[in-house]
């Protein structure tokens, strides 16, 4: 899975209330949730996002509640991948479960600025920064998690496995 897009940079400890405030949890439709993505951080944030853009964050992205609506809102906003220094544990799981790939870049995040153009190869674990010419290598996403992403998330993945006689 390879995507190219423009970076939207956010800081450390972005919690699930910042990603999708509780007042919008009345639906589980990604498109609806996507309209309010990051509204707890900056009202109207999503308006600057083009389909295919890439979210880059600092430490502990997605901390707070276990709401599965947070990765859905990001997907709904048209963002296909999130890169961060580190992710909060339950968010990390929920991301892949909902079909949103996440890559942990560690300190290398500090070399990326808002507006940079990146190509992210999730399968190989390679991030190419076209604005600086740098290449970042990280641990690639394991095969079964890629399968899960290809199935559109955990619900689709389990459907497939059960359908395949597993």
């Amino acid at each position, binding site marked *: 899975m390879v995507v190219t897009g423009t970076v939207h940079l956010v800081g450390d400890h972005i919690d699930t209330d910042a990603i999708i405030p509780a007042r919008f949890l009345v639906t589980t439709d990604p498109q609806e949730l996507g309209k309010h993505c990051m509204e707890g951080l900056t009202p109207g944030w999503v308006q600057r996002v083009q389909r295919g853009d890439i979210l880059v964050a600092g430490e502990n992205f997605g901390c707070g509640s276990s709401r599965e609506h947070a990765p859905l809102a990001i997907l709904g906003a048209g963002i296909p991948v999130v890169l961060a220094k580190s992710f909060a544990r339950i968010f990390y799981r929920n991301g892949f479960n909902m079909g949103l790939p996440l890559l942990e870049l560690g300190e290398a995040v500090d070399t990326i600025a808002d507006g940079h153009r990146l190509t992210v190869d999730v399968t190989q674990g390679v991030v190419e920064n076209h604005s600086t010419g740098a290449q970042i290598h990280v641990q690639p996403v394991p095969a079964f998690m890629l399968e899960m992403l290809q199935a559109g998330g955990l619900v689709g993945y389990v459907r497939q496995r*059960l359908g395949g006689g597993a």
Partner: protein
Amino acid sequence: MGQTLAEKILERHTDTAVDGPGQIVRCRISLALANDITAPLAIKSLRAMGVTRVFDPQRVVLVCDHFTPNKDIDSAEQVKTVREFARQMGIVHYYEGGDVGVEHALLPELGLVGPGDVVVGADSHTCTYGGLGAFATGLGSTDVAAAMALGETWFKVPATIRVDITGMVPPYVGAKDFILEVIGRIGVAGALYQALEFAGPVVEAMSVEGRMTMANMAIEAGAKAGLFAADSATLAYTEAHGRQGDSPIAPDADAQYARRLSIDATGMSPRVACPHLPENVRPVEEVAGIPVDQVVIGSCTNGRIEDLRAAAHVLRGQRVAKGVRLIILPASPKAYRQALDEGLLATFLDAGAVVGPPTCGPCLGGHMGILAAGERCIATTNRNFRGRMGSLDSEVYLASPAVAAASAVAGTIIHPAQVAA
């Protein structure tokens, strides 16, 4: 290279070698758990997955404990959903009514968890079973649904913080005080993404129930799991609760830890966590004299028989202060029955306590002891977030059963030594 407890247990449940933190492994699970709040969501996901049977009807556990006995129509409907699902799937371990206890107090007593197990639960305090030497952790409802369907899940191998407890333990100091001390020192995100591993002479001498009290609150430091080696005491406990064939498990002497912490129990006084975060921990002397309106003794943290004994020890021959409500909720039917047989319930009633059924009840502000604005409670539960037990303008202090019981008698927060005969 040596392995931590987390690495060792996960390796037993996967087909690959576990070489260290950060690695992602797919593990077979021993047990999947959900409750009356989280099971309905998991059931919804299971339906979306097209699941018609769970991986093993013996190893899916459903406990309707949060609002039991059902407090209103909504909670009754939720339980009905879970009950019908359990019947449909032939789930053996479905609990409600007189069989129910607070899930994390109930499962060990039923012998459903043992050393070396991997347990996932749609409840953040699933980490309690680390007290038995099991790798146990809370997940979202969809994750638990998938585990119920497939019998496996994935984990990122956590780094481990090792906590050694040494010294001479003073009277009225124990498991709750040690875990509050750890959370006070490292903070509510101090062990984020990591496992806590507890060891040292004080831990070796600690009862298995005490170990479960400590493991229970690992999540309050952000940890994924709170782990104890399984030793002869653990095996005696699991055998007494109907299990056979369990074996000990311990970390390797040369295991790699991300960080080490040590606690000297000598001279330590009981700990109290002040509003509104479990990390606001003070020695009881520093908060002594603060008046309370309500005292709650129970929950998956401190509602076991040992906790009830500790409370009864302080309450024997005493009366609850005028104007204070003391609510005691044994966490399981077995603890309730044992408390009756040992005369503890009589002690509680003589002291003027309300003794309720096993339920989560006030712990999460559900029912049976909700706080009004301006009211203050000292509780043996695990979270004191703003509004957790009722009004946003109420306060919860967290402490051990001895401190809570003593405070009920004094009407103010107090060191138990000043109350007990």
